[in-house]
């Protein structure tokens, strides 16, 4: 039986990230990257230029005067702010149509990837375990495997399997039994194909089943796993797979997730998601006007 990596390689058409976003992801956390380098990446992507300028001129982002140039926009937002804008927009384009076999529509997808990214960012800031921007990006991309599963397995076959009674089995177990791999493995294979950094590939691979040993020692995978579980509790992006996932006790302990902190995160995610969606709608409206 062909591996998931071989199956993805054999596909004729595969959604991909834009060159600008791939380049931005490759320089994430690189202290040697300056405003010149960022401007050189952004200037080649016209829609991204527009988004950077609008965000850097927006009262919602706290700016009272419009940015007069791309350089000024880059300086105002910083590398992490730019990456956040670019990856959020890119996720909409790439992930919007994903997960059809899982019973997801673009709205449910958007709630899931943005909700997870917001949850991961909140957890990282509260615990200080891992870089919040890396957590935001990893959580945003955690379910790209659902794109791959739609393409490799086929939406109808996938749906037929996922709609069966689970009988207490987890989603990951069901997918592995039916197809030989699950969507987290498929996501990691796709992330490698896209050339994403290894840490993002690992976070995508293990977001449902964190390993017993954190080899990187920064809790990134634990943050992404708990952020994903918060979305599952909230029903964000819940499709045919529903709530058929388990919380890792080790990750819960690493994050220090207790009843009060969990409920605090749930409330904060719903409130912040609502604000983010309004902001995105405003930005898309302005770009289309």
């Amino acid at each position, binding site marked *: 039986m062909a591996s998931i990596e071989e199956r993805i390689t054999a596909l004729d058409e595969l959604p991909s990230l834009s060159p600008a976003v791939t380049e931005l992801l490759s320089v994430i956390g690189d202290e040697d990257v300056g405003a010149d380098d960022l401007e050189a990446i952004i200037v080649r992507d016209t829609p991204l230029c527009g988004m950077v300028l609008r965000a850097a001129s927006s009262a919602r982002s706290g700016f009272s005067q419009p940015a007069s140039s791309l350089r000024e926009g880059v300086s105002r937002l910083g590398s992490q702010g730019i990456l956040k804008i670019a990856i959020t927009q890119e996720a909409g384009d790439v992930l919007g149509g994903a997960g059809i076999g899982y019973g997801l529509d673009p709205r449910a997808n958007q709630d899931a990837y943005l909700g997870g990214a917001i949850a991961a960012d909140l957890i990282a800031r509260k615990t200080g375990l891992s870089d919040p921007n890396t957590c935001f990006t990893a959580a945003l991309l955690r379910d790209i495997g659902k794109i791959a599963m739609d393409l490799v397995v086929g939406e109808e076959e996938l749906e037929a399997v996922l709609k069966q009674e689970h009988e207490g089995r987890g989603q990951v177990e069901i997918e592995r039994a039916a197809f030989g791999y699950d969507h987290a493995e498929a996501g990691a294979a796709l992330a490698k194909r896209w050339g994403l950094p290894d840490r993002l590939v690992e976070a995508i691979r293990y977001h449902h089943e964190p390993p017993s040993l954190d080899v990187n020692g920064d809790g990134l995978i634990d943050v992404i796993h708990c952020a994903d579980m918060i979305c599952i509790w*909230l*029903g964000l992006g819940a499709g045919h797979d*529903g*709530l*058929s996932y*388990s919380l890792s006790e080790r990750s819960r302990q690493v994050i220090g997730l207790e*009843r009060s902190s969990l409920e605090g995160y*749930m*409330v904060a995610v719903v*409130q912040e998601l609502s604000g983010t969606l309004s902001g995105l709608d405003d930005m898309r409206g302005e770009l289309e006007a």
Partner: protein
Amino acid sequence: MKLCVGPEGRIITHALGSCIGLTIFDPETQVGGLLHFMLPGPMREGTNHKPFMYAMTGIPNLFKSAYAAGASKGRLVVCAAGGAEILKEGSSFDIGRRNRTMMRKLFWKSNVVLAGEDTGGSAARTMTLCLQTGRVTIKSKGEETMLWPR
């Protein structure tokens, strides 16, 4: 929470996980409402900025708003869906179960009987209230079922 008066339209809440969707409908005045609450109650008193996120505050508010719009308690058809659980967890968060328990406690105290209920398990659900007929439907795993009338 959403409350409407009139014979047209539907109120929908998508993808209920451990949250609970609660519909009320008065067939005579066609007052209908839907509350989507996330948690049984606020963690600490005084932090309840969003009352409709919680059963403790959202449910009384939903009923009060319906009465103010002309609904009568004796005629209200009340249905609930959601309150699902994740497969297993090392801790005892039990959000779905605690949501169900709080809702039932409030209804028991207020003498409210559910006309239709689809709660628990591990499936996500979408709940729809039709304001013309009061019909309540649940969509889960791509299949739609009628919760009220049965």
